[in-house]
Structure formats: structure tokens, C-alpha cells
């Protein structure tokens, strides 16, 4: 089965501290992994993706994610959190069971950064 799990409903971090938002996946074959962010009343904004190559992927707004094949994880990280990073974060994996066009999303993790 193709699935993605975000084990934390909410992550709280103080501004300036590093943040991690966790994601694990289950796929058959090569995983194509994505992170999106959703601000209130906005659509899903693309942050970064892992297709192949370097396990550390850099994306928008200073975010990065580390692909770990042995742990089937793709955690989102940022060295120094900003209050403006507070939002809902979604991890997603391509569903390759059919044409490979669909994304399967996790349930989302709310990141709250306090000043």
C-alpha cells in the first residue's frame, strides 16, 4: 500500500530554534516525496521534493528535508524557526499504483512558532 504518515498533529517551537516536522512513508518502488505548506485561507504551496540523488533536499524559505531510505522517512527541517513559519505542513508521496499522477497526502502537522 502507498501511504504517508505524519505522527504529530502539532509541533511547537520557539523562534530561533531548529524545527523538525516528521514524515514517514510506505511505497512499493522508488518514493517521490513532497512537502507543502498551507497558510490560512491560502492554497497548498510547494516547499520541496525528493525524486532521486542527494538525500538532503533544499527548498523554499530556508526549509530542507532529509530522505532516509532505511527509516522510510522524509523529515522537514529548518535550522532557525521564524514566527511567520507558523502554518499547516503536509507531506505527500506520489501514488504509483496507476498512472503516477496522484499525490497521497498525510493528515498534516500544525507548526506553531512562538516569539
Amino acid at each position, binding site marked *: 500500500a502507498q501511504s504517508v504518515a505524519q505522527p504529530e498533529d502539532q509541533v511547537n517551537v520557539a523562534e530561533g530554534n531548529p524545527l523538525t516536522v516528521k514524515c514517514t512513508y510506505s511505497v512499493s518502488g522508488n518514493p517521490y516525496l513532497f512537502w507543502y505548506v498551507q497558510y490560512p485561507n491560502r492554497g497548498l504551496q510547494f516547499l520541496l521534493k525528493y525524486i532521486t540523488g542527494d538525500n538532503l533536499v533544499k527548498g523554499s524559505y530556508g526549509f530542507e528535508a532529509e530522505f532516509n531510505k532505511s527509516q522510510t522517512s522524509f523529515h522537514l527541517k529548518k535550522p532557525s524557526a521564524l514566527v511567520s513559519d507558523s502554518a499547516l505542513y503536509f507531506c505527500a508521496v506520489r501514488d504509483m499504483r496507476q498512472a*503516477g*499522477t496522484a499525490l497521497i497526502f498525510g493528515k498534516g502537522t500544525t507548526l506553531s512558532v512562538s516569539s
Partner: protein
Amino acid sequence: EPEVTQTPSHQVTQMGQEVILRCVPISNHLYFYWYRQILGQKVEFLVSFYNNEISEKSEIFDDQFSVERPDGSNFTLKIRSTKLEDSAMYFCASSSSVLSSTDTQYFGPGTRLTVL
């Protein structure tokens, strides 16, 4: 920066009525998608569309749903006879290339559909 746009932002309808949700994908993108998010639940894939035909659809996308690209810019989702459980946020997305499995999907702001 080019964006996917969706209209209306909020649609209220009576059960049994037909609704059409509209999207303008990013210009020169080739693949188009609809997803939905029922309040408090995951974002779920509905359908993908390429070269004027459905590429892939989920089990949610039954005969009540249809998609169309009526002209060179719009992409629409029609729900023929709405049910209460169709109440959700509907997201349109588009991607640029035929390498659909690795390409990035860019999402619109969504249309909130409320069925009374």
C-alpha cells in the same frame, strides 16, 4: 510568479443542485488535477487530466463528477447532483510536464463548497 486561480472562493448550494467549480491553471502547464479536503480530514486526490482526457481518477470520482477544459485557459469540475457529504474544500492544481510522476503540482487557493 504565475499562480493557479480558482473561482468562486466559496459556493453555497442546496442538496441535489449542480455546481461547477472553475480553475485557471498556470499558463503552458499540461496536467491538471482536482483534490478535495473535507473539514478536518486529509487532502484527497480526485482526478487528473491531460490532453483533453482523464488520466487517472480515484474511487471518489464517481459518475456524479465530471471535468472539462472548455477553452484554452479554464479547467472545471462539475458535480451533477450535490450531496451533503460533498461539502469540502476543492483544490485545483497543475503541473508543467509529461513526466507527471516526478513533476511538481502547483495548487490554487481552493473553493469551499457548502451543501445545505
